[in-house]
């Protein structure tokens, strides 16, 4: 019965998804969730590039930031034995799929292209599985950024804060001027984005690694973690009351319009500022979350190559090669607001914030301070990440009243989710 159910469901899905797709020309079907203006434009470069090589791009966009819907579609496709050629994916999702044995092998291409040398080791952790290259990394976003409205900063007379105390003093000054100090959207991943940076500035890089990457119970239950939650509560007091459920780009818009002073967000926010005609570095100041300079918490977009038949293999390799070309990575990142995954791409053409991001990334990679972001699926598996989300977001919204409670809940939640 079960087998029949599976086969039937699989057959149905195959019919639905491949209807009219049987053509002889080499074709790559790519599943992604880059549907917003800037993202789609960035992807278009890749599409044109491939068409020049005679490979047809078969778009398979599944909207929904973070890719939740896309992953649901992927599950159905893989269960039915008909995976797409390549899938845009983040962090631990890649390793989870590799564990299911569903992904292909890019070793030959990687050896020929010298990928080992040009991709930072911290990124390779997500593009390789069992000594096999399984994914082509496109770009790196870092999440420990603050974006400030320069006009507001000048008006209240503050410059970029360099320490936690300076940050608090700046936020107080912005509030005194009658402006919302911190633009924030109350969605679990945004709360966790703040949490990433606060852990990093409170405990330092080693503590971040121990607590959020190694998930060490001692570090998770430590007094340092208690002060992390105290600081989260402090940040909460600078957010306007209408923040629950607000999308991140609406929070960016508050900074753009000068309704709010600053936003703590990854560098994809830059796209919003640029689209609004603000010049990064001039109209919008970008600086690392105070106390985290030298460290970078990152997430990386990668295209995972799935196991496909020999007929689709050449086009797949062509796609991987195109993704890894330095020229493509540079032009892609300029549009998307990220940094190329390859470390040998020159920074000409990037804006001030982009140049700083590339420099910071190189430094952090060299000193082993390039660490996966918890909020963006690069520190822990989805089950653990969501368990931490629950505690962080509950505490941030006042559901958990004290830091002691929050720490206890954190330790228990992580243990239960592993």
């Amino acid at each position, binding site marked *: *019965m*079960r087998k*029949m*159910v599976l086969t*039937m469901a699989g057959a149905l899905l195959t019919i639905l998804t491949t209807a009219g797709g049987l053509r002889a020309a080499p074709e790559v079907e790519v599943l992604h969730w880059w549907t917003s203006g800037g993202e789609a434009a960035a992807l278009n470069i890749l599409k044109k590039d491939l068409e020049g090589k005679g490979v047809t791009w078969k778009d398979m966009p599944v909207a929904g930031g973070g890719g*939740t819907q896309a*992953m*649901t579609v992927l*599950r159905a496709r*893989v*269960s039915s034995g008909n995976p797409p050629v390549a899938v845009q994916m983040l962090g631990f999702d890649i390793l*989870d*799929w590799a*564990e*299911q044995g569903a992904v292909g092998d890019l070793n030959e291409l990687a050896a020929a292209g010298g990928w080992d040398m040009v991709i930072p080791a911290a990124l390779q952790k997500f593009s390789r599985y069992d000594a096999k290259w399984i994914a082509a990394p496109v770009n790196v976003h870092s999440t420990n950024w603050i974006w400030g409205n320069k006009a507001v900063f000048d008006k209240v007379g503050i410059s970029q804060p360099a320490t936690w105390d300076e940050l608090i003093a700046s936020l107080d000054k912005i509030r005194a001027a009658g402006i919302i100090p911190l633009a924030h959207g*109350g*969605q*679990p991943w945004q709360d966790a984005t703040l949490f990433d940076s606060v852990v990093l500035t409170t405990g330092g890089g080693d503590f971040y690694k121990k607590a959020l990457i190694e998930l060490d119970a001692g570090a998770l239950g430590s007094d340092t973690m208690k002060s992390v939650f105290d600081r989260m509560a402090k940040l909460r007091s600078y957010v*306007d*009351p*209408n*923040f*629950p*459920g607000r999308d991140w780009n609406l929070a960016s818009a508050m900074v753009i319009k000068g309704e709010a002073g600053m936003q703590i967000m990854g560098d994809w926010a830059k796209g919003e500022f640029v689209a609004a005609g603000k010049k990064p570095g001039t109209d919008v100041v970008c600086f690392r979350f105070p106390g985290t300079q030298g460290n970078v918490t990152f997430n990386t977009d990668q295209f995972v190559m799935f196991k496909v038949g020999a007929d689709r293999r050449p086009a797949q390799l062509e796609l991987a090669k195109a993704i890894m070309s330095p020229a493509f990575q540079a032009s892609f990142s300029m549009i998307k607001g990220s940094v190329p995954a390859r470390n040998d791409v020159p920074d000409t053409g990037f804006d001030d914030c982009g140049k700083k991001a590339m420099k910071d990334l190189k430094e952090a990679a060299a000193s082993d301070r390039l660490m996966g972001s918890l909020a963006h699926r690069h520190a822990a*598996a*989805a*089950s653990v990440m*969501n368990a931490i989300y*629950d505690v962080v*977001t*509950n505490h*941030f*919204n*006042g*559901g958990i009243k004290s830091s002691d409670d929050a720490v206890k*809940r954190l330790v228990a*939640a992580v243990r*239960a*989710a592993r």
Partner: protein
Amino acid sequence: MGAPAMPRGRTPTDRAIGWLQVQLPKLVLSPSLVIVLLFVYGFILWTIVLSFSRSRILPVYTFAGFDAYERLWSLPNWSVALQNLAIFGVLYIGLCTLIGLALAILLDQRIRIEGVLRPIYLYPMALSFVVTGTAWKWFLNPGLGFEKVVRAWGWSDFTFDWLVNPDMAIYTIVIAAIWQSSGFVMAMFLAGLRGIDNELIRAAQIDGASPFKLYWRIIIPQLRPAFLSAVIILAHMAVKSYDLVIALTGGGPGNATELPATFMYSYTFTRNQMAVGAASAVIMLMTIAAIIVPYLYAELRGDDRGR
């Protein structure tokens, strides 16, 4: 259902046609029967199987006993979801029934423009819960909707921040859901009221029953079947409500408005804990079954009595 006796002296063709006539309903019904068996009961079985497995990202079939259920009941999110379901379910079913009944009784007073009023109350039902949720999200947002308007009118201390208040957010879902469904309940009661024998009402009026007594003693007791149907329909809508929560609060603030259905979706599809998600789905199925099965049983027994 036995085959009718064949009269003697028929040709084989006649017999074939006769056979076909008897079998045709079964033949026509069988594809839909197979589809229902497969896609409803087959997948229910599959979900039950998954809930006893170690499935995480994809279905696997290693038996894990009640492991997923143990995990499920130890999760704080699940208890939040159940508490919310209790609050939501009781208020939603209770208030929808009350408001629906009140509207129906008022509309039943032979008022002049009933034909205009009735569809007005009924129209929210024509909207999808996503539309309802989005509209109420804007209306209840303190910086955008109701609170802002009242403050702009001059009551500058007016506060109505339930949507962003973790302790009160679940009640905004109740409000939106009642707005959507009470018109439908009204229609059911109205149909029930119209079906009551006028002789009975007149007799009570002649005996000098006050309008209140008339409704309380004579009319409402006769609406029992309508009550039963309304509660059953509302109860299963409460247990499966998902879209309204997603559109209105997204489960937030924090996870203050998590319901079993949103829990099931997030654990199965975004948290890579498919077995736990399947276990929660089985619990939800059992909850609905606990409501529906007695109802079906009562209905079928009623048929036996030839009602």
